[in-house]
């Protein structure tokens, strides 16, 4: 039997853009963290988006610094 695409039995072809999957992963982590830390859940969307942006920006900066380090040294 040859499978067509069957969800959960066949992996998605993500090899070319796997790094973009970092964004929903970081967003999910930030939502869960803020859901647990925040008392007022009405502020959750704004806080989760801000934290997601911070994490992604600092990860990009860290990647840039490491890349420069490997290129220059």
């Amino acid at each position, binding site marked *: 039997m040859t499978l067509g695409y069957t969800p959960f039995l*066949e992996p998605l*072809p*993500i090899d070319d853009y796997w790094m973009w999957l970092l964004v929903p992963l970081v967003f999910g982590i930030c939502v869960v963290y803020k859901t647990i830390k925040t008392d007022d*859940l009405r502020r*959750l969307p704004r806080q989760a988006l801000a934290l997601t942006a911070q994490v992604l920006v600092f990860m990009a900066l860290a990647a840039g610094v490491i890349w420069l380090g490997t290129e220059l040294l």
Partner: protein
Amino acid sequence: MTDSPPQTTLRFAAAVAAWVFPGLGHLLIGQRARGFILMGTIGGLWTLGLLIGGISVIEHRDQDGKLRPWFLGQMLLAPTLPVDYLHLKLRSDHIAEFGRLPLPDDPTIPYVPAIGRTHEQGTLYTSLAGLLNLLAILHVSCQPPPRRKAATPKA
């Protein structure tokens, strides 16, 4: 001050419920909004991980019989256990029939094993979902019991 037995029982039940299904513990203690958000987010990450890599990203032992450390994170969500059982059963059935592991290009295959980045991402998503659920379990274990409405004085 120590908790009364019903409160301790409720917290324990909430922690177990949170392990069985993410967010269920918070629903049990009356924090509905928090429970639904955790259910959607943690459940979504876990499901997305399975969608990315398929069931082959969840296995407590690899082909050589070695324990996979990532499974420690994955098993913090109870739905991982039936998926692990299903994956290992399909794999052992295939080995029993054909005498070898399923390969991605195999014409007779019960599932397509994920390899490379796909396997990494699927494993990462499902393991982090489990670890986030641990955070939710610890949170729900430390919550005060749901408030009861004060009885209105009779006129």
